[in-house]
């Protein structure tokens, strides 16, 4: 049975390696992904800041297409896409009136049959930590990987998270530990990186992301693990600006969860796209004997 896959817009741009490594890792795990054909952007923050109907209709078109394609589930790797798809699904599930109204806007009916999930939740629920452990061929020994959940993977908790405590989520930590790495407790797991203010108020993003890097360094982390292209963009791509502002060059590699998994599951480094990062992870991986 194939799982529906919604890559999201960043998978074709700044987070190419997230898409590349996710596909590689799924092959290793024997998971068949089927892309939702002709998917469109979820609308992200600009949509819900502009029109509630638009913010529901854009994700719902994707859900309707996935259903029409015969899929039972839709999995995405982006926390922001996940949040929009899941909130739209839950909203129309709650309110038949809203469902009818949005179906009319979309022009394709959605019948609420899909399971909407994020890659991290998918790994935890559908693959399971035990199976993941069995598949590890290169344990990530001595790697201290600080798991960063950001905002939209856990909030609003009643709609999107499967973690018991949204203020201190642990699902990603469990995955990272299953890969043989250490996941330290740290202060900034769910602090905001500035998210959609990336271009419009870059100064705020530099400040907030700088705090996150500082906290990870304080926890002695070798890298930060992320599960969202926007968190990644702010933490990785802004590091040189953060360095010039804070006067500290953290040089902290930011790795997608799929990349870290790829290494542990024995995918070749070159096939994961890790060399596309602004802050190179090569030295850290060499030091740990993983490259």
């Amino acid at each position, binding site marked *: 049975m194939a799982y529906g896959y919604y890559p999201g*817009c*960043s998978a*074709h*741009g*700044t987070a*190419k390696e997230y898409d590349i490594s996710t596909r590689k890792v799924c092959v290793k795990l024997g998971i068949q992904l089927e892309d939702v054909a*002709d*998917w*469109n*952007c979820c*609308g*992200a*923050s*600009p*949509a*819900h*800041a*502009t*029109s*509630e*109907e*638009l913010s529901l*209709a*854009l994700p719902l*078109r994707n859900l309707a297409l996935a259903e029409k394609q015969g899929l039972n589930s839709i999995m995405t790797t982006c926390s922001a896409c996940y949040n929009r798809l899941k909130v739209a699904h839950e909203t129309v599930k709650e309110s038949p009136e809203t469902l009818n*109204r949005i179906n*009319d*806007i*979309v*022009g*394709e009916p959605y019948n609420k049959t899909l399971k909407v999930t994020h890659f991290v939740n998918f790994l935890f629920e559908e693959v399971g930590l035990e199976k993941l452990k069995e598949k590890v061929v290169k344990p990530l020994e001595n790697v201290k990987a600080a798991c960063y959940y950001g*905002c*939209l993977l856990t*909030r*609003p*908790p009643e709609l999107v998270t499967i973690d018991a405590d*949204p*203020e201190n989520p642990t699902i990603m930590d469990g995955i990272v530990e299953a890969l043989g790495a250490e996941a330290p407790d740290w202060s900034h797991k*769910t*602090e*905001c990186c*500035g*998210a*959609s*203010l990336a*271009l*419009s*108020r*870059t100064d*705020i993003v530099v400040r*907030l992301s700088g705090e996150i890097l500082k906290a990870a360094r304080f926890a002695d982390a070798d890298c930060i693990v992320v599960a969202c292209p926007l968190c990644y963009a702010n933490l990785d*791509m802004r590091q*040189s*600006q953060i360095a010039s502002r804070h006067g500290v060059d953290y040089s902290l590699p930011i790795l997608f969860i799929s990349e870290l998994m790829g290494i542990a599951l024995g995918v070749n480094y070159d096939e994961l796209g890790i*060399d*596309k*990062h*602004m802050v190179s992870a090569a030295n850290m991986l060499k030091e740990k004997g993983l490259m």
Partner: protein
Amino acid sequence: MIYQLNANVRNFGETISELSGVDISTCYQCGKCTAGCPVVMEMSHTPNQIMRLIQLGLKDEVLSSPTPWLCASCETCTTRCPKEVDIAKIMDTLRILALKEGYKRKEPNVVAFNKIFLDSIKNNGRLQETKLAIVFNLKTLQFFKDMMLGQKLFKKGKISFSNDSIKGTDAVKAIFERSKGFLNKGER
């Protein structure tokens, strides 16, 4: 600051509650939203102040505040509110209302970003990050913003000028045309 209240004081609060579907009257000013807000240091009105101003019906003060435009939509406030007030949803409502009623925005770059972003989706079905950044820089007259970063991204193969359009662009355009803001909800 001294505010002059008038007879219509309740109306604005009721309007916001109706449009957002969130009961704003239950906020009792504990300040937890403000304590957890990551952007509060940039705000002229803190989130709990916005809530109080809405309750007092001070429409102009609220709708000309830059606070909703600075909100990063991280939803920490909504998650932590002991009265289950969806403050992030209120911020959306205020943004939409401020746009509709033509209030002078104090965070023009955020408004510009949202518009360019949505135009890109409307025309192509998907967001093209490279184009978004270039158009944003041109429209906000920041010609050299992130140029160094752009060069580095180019070397990593992450800059693309090709069209990432979908087949269903007409379907997406139709969604934009049929979608309305909160204000039109009652008209249907």
